């Protein structure tokens, strides 16, 4: 059982490594979107630091969402997905391997780049720490929920935009608590409550989302 899981993970990471564009585009999108807001609103540090939590989280949401269409599409095209469906291992388990790979490739870089963007938004140091923690705790949920959307829209025309419409409302709790955590630390209040809720939400997603994704894959493929 473990062998298959590790194989799926390694294969996805290898493929992503070869197509380095995935990591790069996600990062660049995050960077560009974050740069748009100061250009639109003005460079005053006070204003920027007050909008920073929301803006950075929305940019992270959108950046992570871009790569969702490819999560299952390439495997569907070359027949690997069918193999996974026929494999003796539970599909939900194999799906977690793919989602983990997606998070490593598209979620983790955003977590690592975020403090630098945070500096551009004049965030104080402890807020930066909370930002990284919050993203670390919250981005897995984004990948997990996003996978459901990717599985439901597999092979559908215009799936990129459709995924956004389906998945963004479901992202809202993560956004609220994620941005709320950073804002709380900016105002000198503890962010523990927010961070715990984020962790809880990610854990809940970890339990439920792979099953929903597996069900969605069976619906889309059969």
């Amino acid at each position, binding site marked *: 059982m473990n062998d298959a899981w590790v194989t799926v993970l390694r294969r996805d990471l290898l493929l992503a490594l070869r197509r380095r564009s995935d990591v790069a585009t996600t990062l660049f999108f995050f960077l560009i979107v974050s740069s748009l807001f100061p250009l639109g609103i003005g460079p005053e540090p006070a204003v920027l630091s007050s909008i920073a939590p929301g803006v950075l989280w929305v940019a992270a949401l959108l950046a992570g969402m871009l790569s969702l269409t490819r999560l299952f599409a390439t495997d569907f095209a070359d027949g690997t997905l069918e193999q996974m469906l026929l494999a003796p291992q539970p599909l939900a388990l194999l799906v977690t391997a793919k989602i983990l790979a997606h998070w490593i490739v598209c979620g983790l870089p955003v977590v690592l780049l975020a403090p630098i963007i945070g500096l551009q938004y004049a965030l104080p140091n402890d807020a930066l720490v909370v930002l990284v923690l919050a993203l670390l705790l919250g981005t897995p949920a984004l990948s997990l929920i996003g996978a459901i959307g990717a599985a439901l*829209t597999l092979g*559908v*025309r215009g799936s990129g935009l459709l995924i956004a419409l389906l998945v*963004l*409302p*479901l992202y809202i*709790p993560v956004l609220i608590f994620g941005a709320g955590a950073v804002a709380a630390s900016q105002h000198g209040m503890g962010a523990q409550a927010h961070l715990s809720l984020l962790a809880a939400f990610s854990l809940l997603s970890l339990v439920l989302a792979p099953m*929903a994704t597996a*069900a969605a894959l069976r*619906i889309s493929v059969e």
Partner: protein
Amino acid sequence: MNINWFKYSSPQTFYPLAGKMIPWFAWLTAAFAVAGLYIGFAIAPTDFQQGEAYRIIFVHVPAAWMSMVIYIVMAGWAALGLAWNARLSAMMAQALAPTGAIFTFIALVTGSLWGKPMWGTWWVWDARLTSELILLFLYLGFIALQSSIDDVRRADRAGALLALVGVVNVPIIYFSVKWWNTLHQGSTISMGAAPKMVTTMLIGMLLMALAFWMYTIAVALMRVRCIMLERERTAEWVKQLSNFQE
């Protein structure tokens, strides 16, 4: 009395049954609406604080209630459709969605129209209105997903799964939005600050809610008949029906 429910699970037998039920629900809608509007306008007194504008609640609140009830019922039909692989259940879910979206839209617009004279702004980011807005997105997502998948069976089941994922998330989303709203308590404006409820007001709202409910059933039956006609258009019973029209 032993009703053979499964007899009605095929489109061919459900179509005429639904057709017979529609006029009943239409009349019930009219009756409740007349009663509700009469109470709302002729009996319910002027509100001490909000004047006559509060009367908007006689459509705003029932519409909001319906928007939430319909989503839950829709998810229920979706679950049945997935569990029993029943086509008709999936069609009922599909039939309810547009009506749910329309009530959500009505709730949002009437909420805005109520807010403007009362609190001076066309929109307030309070927990209830914001949750209604997100509910609208959930409805639109459901409708968009179903209409973008060509294979009917896949569309049914994908939509059903989405509805179930949505219904699980709705309490979580509502809770998050409430939290968010209490955190950013910049304004004390809230749609929850309804006028002090006199019994007549409550009765009026309930009657209007019943009217909307009867309406929803009637319209969902109408829509499910359309869906059946479209899906089964090459079937013999549909051809015979079409010969009777015009």
